[in-house]
């Protein structure tokens, strides 16, 4: 599903996000990068309508998201927050099942097919045996995977992930990013992921969006837009680009 952004503006306090024009294509991973406070999370929340993006600014396959009701919207776009909002110690399966909310009327409970969708999602992220485990006992890497599984159970065509690798060790960081890539390649989803790790973005993203102070500085294929001047202007520190074994890596 194609996602198009036109003249998106969102502000709170002194911060304002401005995205004049941007598009995300299906089957591709787009990485949002930029320093803290650049507006990556706010942008993702606007795309997910967690924050109201305003009429005529975000389109899914040409349909204005402002005109789509909550339940239908949740079937189009799934949002993975940085940390789950957990107050109660649900089992992993019960937590993943909440991803089915858009399919279940207000006075109903999950049916067998919802259970199956949740188990299938857990299988996809490699945690098929985790169903009965309490979520409070998961490691932070497992929690990220369970969050992703929850959004997979939602079966949306667009997937937005807010810094899914923060605080993870290199192995789990790589595993999560491989999973994210697999979602775009194998299931054809449109994936937008905000990242701090530039090496992960370079390795796994098909497109990159550089953001700073609420504005998009550059967007496109890494090969087309990435150079040392861009990195320096976005992050305000000298950063170098090197080619090693045919791959570009960032040094600082």
């Amino acid at each position, binding site marked *: 599903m194609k996602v198009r952004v036109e003249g998106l503006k969102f502000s709170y306090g002194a911060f304002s996000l401005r995205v004049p024009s941007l598009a995300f294509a299906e089957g591709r991973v787009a990485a949002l990068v930029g320093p803290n406070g650049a507006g990556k999370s706010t942008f993702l929340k606007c795309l997910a309508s*967690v924050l109201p993006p305003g009429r005529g600014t975000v389109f899914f396959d040409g349909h204005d998201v402002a005109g789509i009701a909550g339940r239908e919207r949740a079937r189009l776009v799934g949002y993975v927050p940085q940390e789950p*909002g*957990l*107050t109660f110690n*649900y089992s992993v399966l019960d937590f993943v099942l909440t991803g089915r909310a858009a399919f*279940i009327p*207000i*006075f109903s409970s999950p049916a067998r097919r919802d259970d199956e969708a949740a188990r299938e999602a857990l299988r996809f992220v490699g945690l098929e045996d985790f169903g*009965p485990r309490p979520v409070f006992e998961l490691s932070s890497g497992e929690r990220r995977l369970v969050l992703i599984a929850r959004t997979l159970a*939602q079966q949306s065509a667009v997937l937005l992930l807010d810094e899914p690798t923060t605080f993870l060790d290199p192995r789990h960081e790589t595993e999560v990013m491989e999973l994210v890539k697999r979602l775009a390649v194998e299931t054809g989803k449109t994936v937008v992921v905000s990242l701090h790790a530039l090496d992960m973005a370079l390795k796994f993203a098909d497109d990159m969006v550089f953001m700073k102070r609420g504005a998009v500085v550059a967007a496109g294929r890494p090969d087309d837009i990435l150079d040392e001047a861009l990195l320096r202007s976005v992050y305000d520190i000298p950063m170098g680009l090197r080619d090693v074994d045919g791959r570009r890596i960032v040094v600082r």
Partner: protein
Amino acid sequence: MSGRRDRRTTVLSVLAVGLPLVLSLVALNVGAYRIPPKAVFTTVAEAVFPGGDGPGPSPYADILFRVRLPRLLLALFAGAALAVSGASLQALFRNPLVFEFSLGISNGAAFGAALSIVFLGRGFPPQPAAFVFALLAVLLVVAIAGRSASQVVTILLGGVIVSALFQALLSLVEVFANPYALQSLVFWLMGSLGQATWSDLAVTLPVIGVGVAVLILMRWRLNVLSLGEEEARSLGLDTTRDKIAVIALAALVTAAATAVMGVVSWVGLIVPHLVRMAVGADNRKVVPLSAGYGAALLLLADTVARGAAPFEIPVGILTSVVGIPFFIVLLKKSGRIWL
């Protein structure tokens, strides 16, 4: 592990229905005038199938049907109402320490009912005024807590403020009440099921029945709402509508119970916590089981209040006196608040 928990859930589900039934039979023969179990049975049988070969109308019929039965039904329904609204509010506010009482709903309802009794008379049903002020109380708390409504401390602080406000207003009503009304008002406020009449119950029981049934139907939705506003919205919920529905229903059933029996607290905190300790956090189990165990707990408390001493202890005092130390032990034992 999952199998053992499933079996435990089954046993607890059976008990949630069985316990209130068994307690009901006990409650019917306990009281100032003790009625033997056999007489309870024959009297009930005579009432259900009149004109049998029995000895004619039982001498116990008056006590059973005019005094004990309404009281028993009120205990069952009110217990279920308090426990279910407690469980629902805890999920909705993502806060294991909120319940009707800590959100000011109970005192709001009590003020509304007292206002109605003193100024509109005993003939006018006190439930509508109780509901209006119960809702007003919880909305005030939400407004005071503002955007940090999920934060444990702010919402409790808001509850304390609003409870204090309605407590003060209640005292004001007492000042205006005439001496005869005052005595029954004070006894009612301590929390007592003894004044329940069929005409009170005609309003309260259907309201609680419908309210609790709808909250039980929404039990899984509460799992989703307990993830917080942003996540619930991204999962496709109309969070504003759902929140209003849960708050209104919780206020409604609490008001319906409080209007008739006064302030009975702690049931809404203790029962959902005990249920969560036994079966886990899934509201698909917690909410319906809370209904059964809330009903059983309040009936048990009321039966003890009637049967333990030669005089009657207001059940609200009993639930507080027993409930608070019990809860403290619970906290100490588990080492943390049970989520």
